[in-house]
Each structure stands twice: as C-alpha cells, then as structure tokens.
C-alpha cells in the first residue's frame, strides 16, 4: 500500500497554481517531456523527429501551441481507448493533470497496450548498463549504454528476468561506408526498443565477449515509474541519430532528465557524448552507485583458470577441444579437481564455439554433452562466483577524454620549440588506466602545433600533426587465446625531413602483430608489429611514399599514476627522385607520464629520428590537462 503513496508523492508535490498555461509551457518539465532544446537565437526546437510525437502541427518548434493543444485534447476527452493521445502520452497527462489540480478523471487502465507494456516491465529498479569498448566494430568502439529495468528488489540476482531499454539506430542497408556517413550526418532513425535483458547478455557477454557494467540509478519508485511512462511515450517517435552526439548515451540522459528536472545532463554536451563519459557524469552528479561488472564468457574463463595448476589447465583445454575424451582425462582426478577442470572446460568450450553454440547447432551440442553429462555426474556443486568487480576497472572513474597539452622542447639542429596539442577524445596507452580501455588506444580528433625559432632568427608556427583517428589494439597473448595486435592511424603530419621545413602530408598507417603481457598486474606490455605507412605529398616522386618495416612497442606501468612507453620503428621507403628523402626512416620515441591528479599530468618525451643520415634528437617536457 505504501507504494501508492510513494508513487503519488511526486505528483502531488507539483503544486497546482493558477499560473497561465504559457508559463507551464516554459517550465523545465514540459521542455524536457517534449525534448525541446533552445535554438541558437530564440525559441525552441524538439529533438524528436517523428511528427506523431506532437499534438499540434507546429509542436516541434512551439512549446506553447503544443501545450495549449494538449490541454484542449485532454480536457475534451470523456473516455479513452488505445491509440488516443492520453494513452500515447500518459506522463504528459499525469503531469498536466497534477499541475491543473487533478480535474481530469480519465481511466488510463483502458489504454490496454500501455497497461501491458507497464506490467510487462513491472519495473522497481533501474540501472544504466555500459557495455565495454569493442574496437573490432567501429559502431561500438566507444562502448554502448542502455537502461535495465528490474522487477525484483533483490540485489542483482535476477538480472535474467529484467528488461533492457535500448536506444539505437535502425540500420538500413549493409554498406558500412554509408552506415558511417549516415551516422555522422543524422541519416539514421534512432528508436527506443525494449528487449529481455538476457538477449542483451547473449549479445554482449556470450557472443562479443564484452563485459557489462551496471550501475543502479538512485531514483525513487515514483521516478522509475515516470521513466517507464516516458519510455512508452518515446516508443511513439524517433530521433535522427548522430553517432557523436545524439546517440544512445545522450538520449538515455535525456530520459533521466525528464524525471529529474532539477538536473542538467544533456546540455553539458555540445559536440561529443561518449558512453563512458556519460557514466562519469552520472557518477559526478551522484545519480549512480559504484557499479558491478558482469563478466563476458572470455573474462570469466580467464578468471576461473587463474591459479589452476599447469596440468589441470592443460586437461581443461584438451577437454574443451576434444570433449569425447572427457572421461579418460578426468579418470585419475578426485571429484573436486575434476569439477574445477570441467567447469573451466565448459566455459572454454562456449568461448571456442560461441557462434555455433548460440545458433543452437545440434552437432556442437552433442559434442558438448560429453562434458555436461560428466559434470552433472560429479557431485560437487560450484560455489557462487560472488562479486568479481574490481572498482578500479569501473568506467565511471575513467579520465575525461578531452585533453590539452603544452610543452617546451629542444631539437638538435633546429633549437627550441613550444608545442601545443588538443585531443577531442578518448584514451591513449599512457593516459590514466583506471576504468579505461585496457592495452588499447582510441583517439579521435587530435591536433598539435609547433612554434619554432630557427637558428637564422626566423619564427614559424606549424601544424605538427593532425590525427583523425588513431587506434592501437594490443591485447596480450594468454593460455586460451592468441589475439591479434593491430594499429590504424589516419591524418596529416609533417614529413619531418632535413630539407623540408614545413611539408605536411596526408598519411595512412596500419600495423599488424602480436603482444604479450607479463608481471603480476600485467605491468609489462610488449608488442611486435609489421608496420606499413603511406604518405601523400607532391615532394615525392609519384606523389606518395610507401614504407614498410618492423615496429616494437613496450609499456611499463609502474603504478596507475606513472607509466612509461617506448616505441622503435624502422621503415624501408620507396625511393624518391627528388633526393629530399632517404629511403629509410628510423625512429625511437620514449615517453613517460606522471598523473599528478585527476586533471593534471606531466609528460617527458625523448625522441630520436634519422633523416638523410642525420640524427635529430628531441627532448620535451610538458603538462597535460584533462577537462
């Protein structure tokens, strides 16, 4: 019974006043309910793009007309049925009714589809879910966020019965290039959908091997139910989907804002709304708890096999590769040992055969039965996994993705220079590691300038480098998998040659290889790669220069606040008639960073680079600010 009061409380607290409708139309609640955003000069435009979201033809741009029309329609209704405005927009109805003194007496339980949606979710708690970065798919390289609505109060035990509320772009066609272009210009329609959470778990944990972080939203029951009502309302429209800003994360914030009018969330983003960033914002606003991780099949396998003896691991792997030999292999073991080996081999089997397992392949299931039957016969019951969350991995505590750097340097032959760099997003291998990508780098939009004073007293300000995108994915080898390491970078850079002082050229760089991690907390990372580089510039014979050669990268994490990395590369280049350029290029870069606080880091770089048998040595000391 108390639930009724709990629910009515926030509604009653909107005190009914005599204020004019126009005043109501400019209230935060109304603005948020209709997803209006202030125009640059004056007036409002709603971000909702489906016409059916508005009751007045000018509703998209006119909150006042929309409100008047809405009140008119709600007042004149005597009864309701499915599809009526009241049924489509129950939260607008409830809110206006409470603002206007509860004078409307419509029976919303006649809205059968709304009622069925409401009861299907039966939401009591809400969490925001972050599915970790997935560099193999550009559409979700930054991760993804969605809502989970839980119907039980129990702490996280019954996630499998929950619902996910997902906002995503409807993808039309399969051409990845057009998909990307449309994502940038708002060519996709973004819609809210609801789907049982276990489908989400299958998609992320079992198929793509991505960990899921869930954060309980600190909301009262009334707010959660308002959120359900509002999601229902949003089910009647679509938004133009913009990959960088009006994306999944942005619109989840917009839903939260509707039920918390006192919070400003979406307005904090003018250009990028990156999933991890929105989680960070929610944490700063005190809207979420510390979070909990659901391990992917892969993470679980790695954790379960941690601490097993080499012999047991070996048996577990053999069983997972050849389940028919299960009984032979566990023959000499006691029950406890066999149970552990079988548990790991089950997980490994699902990891190795993920696609077939999820598509319900009969042969695969028959083979797997060898392990399952053996495990069922073994009397040991596996203890609860417990909570394996390491709070240091939480994306909510990751660093801010935007960064500025100012450094002072000295280069042999050229003298002093001052360097300025801006990065829009997101993380590089030496940034603060807490909660961010592991052994990987993802940077979008980075530009650096160099101000030089040459020996002959001439000054110049140059663009040193412009990076559109730079990805380094260096996952380490382990007992179960041998993932590929790769890098990709596109941008423009100074050719950096002895007789060409200001020659920026477009470049494409890609490399492939493998990496290993060593040490207790994987402090040591080393990658060995084959690197290919193509640079476009008219100074080259064919207007381009192709280079190929080995590259190695080593990073050592002394602590989470002090990291050091060294990269060495050698390129054989196609020769050039102009003789401006040599046909080889050797570079060694060493960089150390000390992260003094959440927003300030110090950086020291030493580099050496050979051009035309002249070695250029550079030293730089700088400060980085995350903001």
């Amino acid at each position, binding site marked *: 019974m108390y639930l009724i009061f709990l629910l009515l409380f926030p509604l009653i607290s909107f005190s009914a006043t005599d204020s004019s409708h126009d005043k109501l139309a400019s209230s935060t609640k109304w603005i948020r309910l209709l997803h209006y955003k202030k125009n640059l000069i004056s007036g409002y435009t709603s971000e909702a793009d489906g016409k059916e979201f508005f009751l007045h033809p000018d509703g998209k741009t006119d909150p006042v007309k929309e409100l008047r029309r809405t009140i008119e329609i709600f007042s004149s209704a005597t009864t309701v049925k499915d599809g009526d405005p009241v049924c489509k927009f129950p939260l607008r109805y409830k809110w206006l009714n409470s603002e206007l003194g509860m004078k409307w007496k419509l029976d919303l339980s006649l809205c059968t*589809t709304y*009622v069925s949606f409401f*009861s299907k979710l039966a939401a009591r708690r809400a969490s925001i879910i972050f599915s970790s970065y997935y560099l193999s798919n550009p559409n979700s390289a930054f991760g993804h966020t969605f809502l989970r609505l839980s119907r039980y109060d129990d702490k996280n035990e019954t996630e499998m*019965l929950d619902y996910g509320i997902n906002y995503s772009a409807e993808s039309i066609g399969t051409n990845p290039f057009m998909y990307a272009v449309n994502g940038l210009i708002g060519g996709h329609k973004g819609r809210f959908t609801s789907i049982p959470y276990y489908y989400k778990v299958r998609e992320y944990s079992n198929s793509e091997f991505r960990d899921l972080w869930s954060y309980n939203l600190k909301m009262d029951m009334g707010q959660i139910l308002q959120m359900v009502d509002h999601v229902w309302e949003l089910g009647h429209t679509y938004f133009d989907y913009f990959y960088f800003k009006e994306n999944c994360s942005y619109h989840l914030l917009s839903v939260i804002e509707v039920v918390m009018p006192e919070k400003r969330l979406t307005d904090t983003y003018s250009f990028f709304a990156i999933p991890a960033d929105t989680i960070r914002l929610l944490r700063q606003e005190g809207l979420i708890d510390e979070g909990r991780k659901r391990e992917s099949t892969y993470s679980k396998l790695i954790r379960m096999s941690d601490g097993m003896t080499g012999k047991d691991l070996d048996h577990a792997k053999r069983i997972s590769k050849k389940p028919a030999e299960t009984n032979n292999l566990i023959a000499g073991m006691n029950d406890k040992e066999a149970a552990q080996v079988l548990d790991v081999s089950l997980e490994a089997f699902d990891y190795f055969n993920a696609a077939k397992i999820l598509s319900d392949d*009969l042969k695969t299931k028959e083979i797997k*039965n060898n392990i399952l*039957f053996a495990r069922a016969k073994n009397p040991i*019951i*596996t203890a609860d996994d417990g909570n394996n969350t390491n709070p240091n991995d939480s994306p909510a505590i990751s660093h801010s993705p935007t960064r500025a750097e100012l450094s002072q340097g000295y280069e042999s032959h050229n003298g002093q220079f001052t360097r300025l760099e801006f990065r829009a997003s997101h993380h590089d291998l030496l940034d603060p590691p807490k909660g961010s990508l592991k052994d990987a780098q993802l940077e979008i939009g980075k530009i650096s300038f160099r101000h030089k004073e040459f020996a002959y007293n001439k000054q110049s300000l140059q663009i040193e480098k412009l990076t559109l995108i730079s990805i380094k994915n260096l996952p380490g080898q382990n007992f179960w998998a041998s993932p590929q390491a790769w890098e990709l970078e596109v941008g423009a850079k100074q050719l950096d040659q002895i007789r060409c002082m200001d020659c920026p050229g477009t470049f494409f760089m890609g490399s492939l290889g493998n990496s290993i991690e060593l040490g207790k907390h994987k402090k040591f990372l080393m990658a060995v790669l084959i690197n290919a580089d193509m640079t476009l510039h008219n100074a080259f014979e064919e207007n381009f220069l192709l280079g190929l050669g080995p590259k190695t990268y080593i990073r050592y994490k002394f602590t989470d606040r002090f990291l050091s990395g060294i990269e060495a590369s050698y390129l054989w280049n196609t020769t050039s008639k102009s003789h401006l350029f040599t046909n080889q290029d050797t570079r060694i870069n060493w960089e150390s960073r000390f992260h003094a606080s959440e927003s300030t880091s110090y950086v020291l770089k030493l580099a050496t680079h050979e051009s035309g048998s002249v070695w250029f040595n550079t030293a730089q000391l700088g400060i980085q600010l995350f903001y």
Partner: protein
Amino acid sequence: MKKLIVVVTLALMTSSAFAAKYGSAGCGLGSLIFEGDQTWWKQVLAATTNGTSGAQTFGITLGTSNCDSPAPLKVGQAEAFVEANKVALANDIARGNGETIVGLSKVYGCNNSGEFGQALKSNYSSIFTTASASSTEITHNINNVAASSCNTQI
C-alpha cells in the same frame, strides 16, 4: 503446494498452447498469474491510472521484435526463459548452481534456489535428455522437477 500444482498445470497448458502460436522462437509467450509480492505493480497501476485495477491478462505491443517479450511472471515465462538461456542453463544445472537457476527459481516461485539447483543437477539427464531436446521438452522436464522438489510457499 496446491497453488504450485495449479501453476505447474497452467504452465504445461499455456506453454504448449502458446508455443504452437509463436513457434520455436519461444518469444511472446504470455499468460499471467499475479500473486504474493508481485501484485505491487497492480496497486501502482491502479493508483496512477485512476483505473479500477488492471485486467488479468495482457498481450504485448511495444517494439517490433517478435522476441520482445514474455509476460511478466511465471508460467509462459518459464519456456521463454529456457529458450533464451538454454546454454547457460545447461551449464548451471550441470554445476548445480548459477544465475539462471536463481532466475528460474523466481519464475517458479521457489524460495530456496540452492535446493532447487541441487534437484535440477541430480536430474540433469532427465531434463536434457538429448542434444536435440526442444525448449518445450526441457521446460516440461523442469516443471516435473519443480513440482516434486521446489519448496514453494506462495
């Protein structure tokens, strides 16, 4: 116990009936029994809709996916749950413990998921009879285990 039998009987009736209607995808199953602590949402709904109290059975609408859905509780939900979680469920039952067992205990209204897990484990071979067993068969077999071992006090 009586209630449990009713639930299980209904489970058998509805799951097969709905399975026929929705095909093997196992989605969109739906038939509800509300009771015990689960009635909270009805009170809420009644309070917020000015309604006289919710109807007893509902269909599903929002969303375009055929999989968008089983009814909130019990009965038909068991089969949808089994269908969607078959892989994890087989692993968990073989191990005698795990998240899907806790979830299934909720669906069946079992208070002690530990005992339920134990019972399911010892009946593993009669639940997952063959690799080709359908979700309907598996659910049916689980229903039998639940009927005899699940200590329910709804």
